[in-house]
């Protein structure tokens, strides 16, 4: 393949877009018409040249390793400064927010955040984590599960949080009171089934989960599973169609004799 660097620059944003169907929420900005043509061209070439196929493979592996790198465990920091600082650094690095007990929300981009300030809170447990829109996955959850006094966890619109991640949350069962999973594209009712370990949960948000097959029924079953918890999510009547209205119209119209 000639001019590999130029090719990569051309190919990389197109790859991001063609993969976005399955990976979701990647931030490519090229216009629709161009990207579809580019995607088709890439597919055409990939079907005919092993090099292009290997290139696509390589780009895909690179995307995956990017997510993995973001989710490394902060083992060194954990050993030196304790689990709370490690968890806080992890969440802040990902772009989320952290709330220590008795303090305000700390965000990486916000006012008054500095890494040195964090060190003051070495012994202060974290009571809330807001990891919304972060690329946190199964491995990265290690850092959060070490926070044994966590009371609220917000995982809204996280693209890599799936059913496997939910099965790990049982480690926070003793303290977790509020959990929000709204808008996560990979969570289905199968992952929600393992939330029954969280017996102290008082508020659960399961709205807008596209992978759940039957949102209304799932809401009812989750409410039955966690009787002391307030489940916010789909309305139970969402799955029902407007049958009775049609019937009443029929009876009103005169029957043919």
């Amino acid at each position, binding site marked *: 393949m000639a001019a590999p660097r130029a090719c990569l620059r051309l190919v990389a944003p197109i790859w991001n877009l063609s993969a976005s169907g399955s990976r979701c929420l990647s931030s490519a900005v090229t216009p629709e018409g161009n990207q579809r043509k580019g995607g088709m061209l890439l597919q055409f070439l990939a079907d005919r040249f092993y090099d292009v196929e290997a290139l*696509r493979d390589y780009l895909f592996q690179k995307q995956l390793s990017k997510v993995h790198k973001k989710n490394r465990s902060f083992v060194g920091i954990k050993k030196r400064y304790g689990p709370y600082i490690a968890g806080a650094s992890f969440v802040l690095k990902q772009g989320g927010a952290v709330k220590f007990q008795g303090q305000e929300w700390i965000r990486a981009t916000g006012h008054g955040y500095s890494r040195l300030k964090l060190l003051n809170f070495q012994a202060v447990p974290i009571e809330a984590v807001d990891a919304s829109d972060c690329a946190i996955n199964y491995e990265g959850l290690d850092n959060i599960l070490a926070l044994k006094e966590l009371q609220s966890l917000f995982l809204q619109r996280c693209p890599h949080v799936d*059913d496997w991640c939910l099965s*790990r949350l049982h480690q926070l069962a003793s303290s977790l009171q509020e959990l929000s999973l709204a808008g996560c594209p990979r969570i289905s009712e199968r992952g929600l*089934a393992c939330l*029954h370990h969280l017996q102290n949960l008082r508020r659960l948000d399961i709205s807008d989960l596209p992978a759940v097959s039957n949102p209304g029924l799932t809401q009812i079953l989750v409410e039955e599973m966690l009787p002391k918890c307030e489940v916010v999510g789909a309305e139970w009547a969402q799955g029902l169609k407007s049958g009775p209205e049609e019937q009443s119209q029929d009876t009103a119209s005169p029957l043919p004799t």
Partner: protein
Amino acid sequence: MFRGAVWLLAGRGSLGRGLSTRSGGWTPDWTEKVSEIKKKIQSALPGGAWHPLYDTSHLPPEHSDVVIVGGGVLGLSVAYWLKRLEKPRGAIKVLVVDRDHTYSQASTGLSVGGIRQQFSLPENIQLSLFSVDFLRNINEYLAVVNDPPLDVQFNPSGYLFLASEKGAAIMENNVKVQRQEGAKVCLMSPEQLRNKFPWINTDGVALASYGLEGEGWFDPWCLLQGLRRKVQSLGVLFSQGEVTRFITSSSHMQTTSGKGVTMKRIHEVHVKMDHSLEYQPVECAIVINAAGAWSGQVAELAGIGKGPPDTLEGTKLPVEPRKRYVYLWHCPEGPGLETPFVADTSGAYFRREGLGHNYLGGCSPTEEEEPDPGNLEVDHDFFQDKVWPPLAHRVPAFQCLKHLVRLQVRSAWAGYYDYNTFDQNGVVGPHPLVSNMYFATGFSGHGLQQAPAVGRAVAEMVLEGQFRTIDLSSFLFSRFYLGEKVEERNII
């Protein structure tokens, strides 16, 4: 004879020409004339039909480095790992032969799909742990460019094993081993059990072990199709046909103690096409026996077990098909979303299926009650007599089925276990005498959940000669001759 044919031709031609009008030229049935002439020449010439250039695209290739007999989840897993671990890329030509491309009787598709780490042997636990990792990262392992990602529909609900007084000590021991290997399992007392799962009747239960992570059930068909798709993209060839014969050669050798021993090597595999006598001899270097319930028959074709009893030559592969039933029933007041895969003290099991209060379950029959494995017909009385009573005792909500048993059983099917009659654990690795046949079979009901790890182990054995990641030396064939049983210590 030729002259006679030519005269016939000339005579025919002149007759034809004579009949047609001069201005009209040839009669229009030229092709018919040609085929008649061809037939006449053929009947005049000696020998049968000779078709030098006919279509062989339906036949497997004539040479292949590795032939995998059996295209189920184990066979495809071995093919995948062979292609992944080979050095350099594209070095090994692999052919997968399966006699049914619809997988209508294959154990993989008919499986209930459970995966657990609650075994008593460390090897089984390690195999299962790796397989769960594989399933979790299935879209990294089995990614194919431009194909949609796989969704194995994993339900992480865990397994719940119940033990009576007699089995409580064994269960505690098992859980200790499982925890050592890294499985996340916890023990529960009957009171904790009642608190967590109020629908259980803990009568007769002394202890329970519950898997917290990495256990549950998934869609085996998705795993099979994912493996198939990936393996095809890596260049593995598929052939639909039945292995009917192995062409082997023997060499007589002597052990260090002077005893004579016959070592065999398989040179060719004869693959016979469906509904036809046509077969293709495939020359190969290595044969992998992953034929599931029929592995015993395939091994016999290679001469394994043909010899005086109590010798290594005479030791058969003790894998045979055993029929198991699975029933799907509906119970509106049954346990809810949190239901794990429950395995009762009596051996009956059930799990939740979907969101509509449907449950899948079954029971392993005792040796005396083993059904005839000749077909996959379902015995509905078995559900009434053996499966429903213990489950209804354990989960009182199921007694709603008492008066309507047949009506509420929505569906049932039967599948085969590749049952290892010796110790109910898998056979992995080469045969000591037939040095190029490797086994990956005999897992007796837990083949699906260990398939990715077993595939990797067999691929390592083939490519490097030893197990590198998980040591399965206790699952080798030689244990059948030495009489060393490697049994799971099951709780009663």
